[in-house]
């Protein structure tokens, strides 16, 4: 019997698949459906202090090898979102609360409000298309360290930081997060990108710039996880272009203890979590692996 259960710090997941932030996680009904569909955990929409409409449409463009989006961190604000989290309270399943902010006080305020409803936190220090947030903070190791430390000191749950691959050296940021007390690193976020429509001679996204996700970015995600694994001892959650069980295994071999799935929902539907788990199981059976944890980081040996 193949065992898919994995540990990410103090979190025990029934399987390594996690819903990535920003995908079907703006309301409790969506998150319940994703957990029912077999995800080992869900990450919430990135939540800020106040309601935020996000960028104007078009916010979504389908390209040949991935999806470009510029949602722009839409969210109902922490107060309204607590209502959604309250509805998840009696629901079985691991919830990771994603937070964005511009200064550490914002992160702490939101984390404290969320803390009775979530099992862990994910700090969004990597969104590539929201002015004053995300990557604008997350490329500076000292900002990352300060925010990580203040949040970690304020809540009892594990705090993960979600990093971008669009920095000179992701390991440096990862090391800064680990030193500051982060319980794990999530890598990577979408990559800053754009698309121009030739017929209309204009950028497609309402915000012009957006984030690129899907199969095209997978090798960049795998590289980032591989580099991080060499330099940090805390667990890594891999994300970026994971569509199949083999994609997930590649990330796990690079050093990931868990994987996040987002864009693949577009191609394979909400059952993608079960499908990927089955594909991982089949691969493990074929290759005589009993426990998924035996595969973590094997590419480094």
């Amino acid at each position, binding site marked *: 019997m193949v065992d898919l259960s994995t540990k990410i710090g103090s979190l025990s997941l029934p399987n390594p698949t996690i819903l990535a932030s*920003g*995908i*079907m*996680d*703006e*309301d409790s*009904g*969506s*998150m*319940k*459906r*994703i957990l029912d569909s077999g995800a080992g955990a869900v990450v919430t*929409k990135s939540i800020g202090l106040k*309601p*935020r*409409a*996000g960028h*104007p*449409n*078009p*916010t*979504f*463009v*389908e*390209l040949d090898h991935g*999806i470009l*989006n510029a*949602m722009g961190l*839409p*969210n*109902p*604000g922490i107060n*309204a*979102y607590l209502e959604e989290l309250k509805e998840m309270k009696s629901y079985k399943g691991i919830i990771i609360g994603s937070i964005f902010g511009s200064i550490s006080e914002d992160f702490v305020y939101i984390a404290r409000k969320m803390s009775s409803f979530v099992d862990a936190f994910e700090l969004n220090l990597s969104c590539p298309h929201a002015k004053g947030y995300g990557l604008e903070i997350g490329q500076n190791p000292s900002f990352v360290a300060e925010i990580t430390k203040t949040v970690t000191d304020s809540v009892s749950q594990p705090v993960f930081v979600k990093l971008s691959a669009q920095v000179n050296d992701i390991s440096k940021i990862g090391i800064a997060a680990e030193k500051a007390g982060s319980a794990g690193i999530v890598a990577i976020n979408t990559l800053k990108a754009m698309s121009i*429509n030739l*017929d*209309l001679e*204009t950028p*497609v996204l*309402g915000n012009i710039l957006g984030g690129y996700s899907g199969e095209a970015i997978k090798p960049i995600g795998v590289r980032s996880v591989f580099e991080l694994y060499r330099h940090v001892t805390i667990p890594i959650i891999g994300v970026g272009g994971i569509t199949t069980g083999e994609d997930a295994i590649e990330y796990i071999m690079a050093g990931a203890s868990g994987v996040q799935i*987002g*864009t693949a*929902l*577009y*191609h394979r*539907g*909400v059952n993608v979590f079960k499908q990927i788990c089955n594909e991982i199981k089949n691969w493990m059976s074929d290759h005589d692996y009993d426990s998924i944890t035996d595969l973590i980081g094997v590419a480094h040996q």
Partner: protein
Amino acid sequence: MTHKIYTTKILKTIIETNNVKTILFKHPDSINPGEFYMIWIPDVDEIPMSVSIINSDIKGITFRIVGEATEALYQKTINDKIGIRGPYGNGFSLDGNKILFVAGGTGIAMIFPAVAHTVKQGKEVSVIVGAKTKKELFFIQRLKQINANVYVTTDDGTEGFKGFATQKAEELIADQNFDSVFTCGPEMMMKSLYQICDSKDIIFEASLERYMKCGAGLCGQCVVGNGLRVCVEGPVFSKSKLKEIKDFGVFNRDASGKKTYFHQ
């Protein structure tokens, strides 16, 4: 399944009322009644729109000016370019042989291709078209031309039956043995119809409208009930699904995801 942007020129525009317009364009892919496109109005917005006319390669959308995007689209003329993604979503099942369609306001735009399709199939088709007043009615001639049984209602009695479409529907449902009722219009109207049909052995389906962003099932903006995406599992939902959707007739969500309650 790919839904890349298809840019197309507007072939023709038809003024339906003083603030409702139909735009016709070429789109090569087939689309079923009740499905929708994401219509990109360059430099302005991208909005979901149900198909209102299906004529092989030529497709149409019909809309009322309700905001900045529809205003900009209304101003478009022949040869102007727009971008199209889709089709997305699922239309009515169109099950049953004796069918009642109930359209409120611009809902008739989405209902019309379904009426045309079922009339062509030889089914017995009745349509209630409800509007506030005579000046807001459109598509009535087109419905009569295809030989559907058309009932017009206006709130102020300036045309047809004076009252709400739901009142007329209740009367017709009591008098005739419809197999199915399909509706598109203001949510409170559809909720009332749902309540009328709930206890009866009758197929009932309603087309919901929610704020959309990706239109493709990823962003979660248009979700209702327990994770049902209006853009993927909808926009049409059956009676049994509507029963599970606690949002139906109660609230929708604004662009931030915050709940906005309907006036009861």
